[in-house]
């Protein structure tokens, strides 16, 4: 499968035993993981809430969907994402990574797609980037996972 001939600035996020590949434009900041406040009654993939630039945001462990639960260590980072399309401008969120993300310029169609690896939840497709297996998150699927369409602020 080939992609359109484009250059995309992206970040490789080490999450659990693999990588996520996300366009840099989706990422607001790569932050040190601050003190986390547990959010009761949340799913196990929500690690808690942290303060970032004087706002609270949820930090999630997406690696739980394909690996063991993450532990926050000195190399861990919170990759802060801009709000997803259609969400409130305050709805930043963060994904926990094992280490500092790596910057990449992806030149398509020079990437090898390994479709058989695209079966993980919330991963749209997987690529082989410099020998690293990297999944591109399915943004629509993440939006459904993150936001309860029926829930209002009580």
């Amino acid at each position, binding site marked *: 499968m080939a992609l359109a001939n484009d250059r995309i600035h992206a970040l490789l996020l080490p999450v659990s035993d693999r990588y996520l590949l996300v366009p840099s434009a989706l990422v607001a900041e790569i932050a040190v993981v*601050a*003190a*986390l*406040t*547990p*959010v*009761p*009654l*949340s*799913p196990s*993939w*929500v690690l808690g*809430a*942290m*303060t970032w630039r*004087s*706002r*609270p*945001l*949820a930090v*999630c462990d997406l690696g739980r969907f394909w690996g063991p639960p993450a532990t926050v260590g000195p190399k861990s980072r919170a990759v802060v994402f801009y709000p997803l399309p259609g*969400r*409130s401008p*305050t*709805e930043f*969120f963060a994904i926990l990574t094992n280490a500092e993300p790596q910057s990449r310029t992806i030149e398509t169609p020079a990437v090898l797609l390994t479709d058989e690896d695209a079966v993980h939840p919330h991963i749209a497709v997987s690529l082989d980037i410099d020998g690293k297996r990297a999944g591109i998150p399915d943004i629509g699927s993440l939006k459904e*996972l*993150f*936001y*309860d369409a*029926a*829930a*209002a*602020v*009580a």
Partner: protein
Amino acid sequence: MTDLQHYLELRFAGQTFLMPNGLDVSVEPRENMQLERRGRAAALRTVQGEAWLAYALDSDWLPLPESPWTRVVFLGIGASQPVGLLVDELKLMPVGSLRIEPFTPLGPAPVPGRHLFPAAAVDGRAPILVMAPAGLAAYLRSLGGDNGLGE
């Protein structure tokens, strides 16, 4: 609508939360309560023949039969079935002393249609979650009174 003057700072199960101190909230000391378990409720207060149930929660927000509570925060005052949360410590915090910012919990709402933490205070090292009284009341009511653990 009355302007909010204070938040209640609640501590229980080693966790701290804030809640708007509105007209539908009332605080009772332990001595005004009956230490009588009813289902999952750990205590109750009888008001005009009606039992107002109150719940102790652990850090996962599961009901406990007992806790070192000192006060009860009743929610839904004026509604048909007020319900209480047992807390270990309680403080009044002036609105002006806190920086409250909106927060959106991720994942499914714990009570159908309602999230419980629509905001957080971001003054300190870690955020302090602000509880939505109506959402909290709905959650506590969902624990059931007479149909829970019932020991």
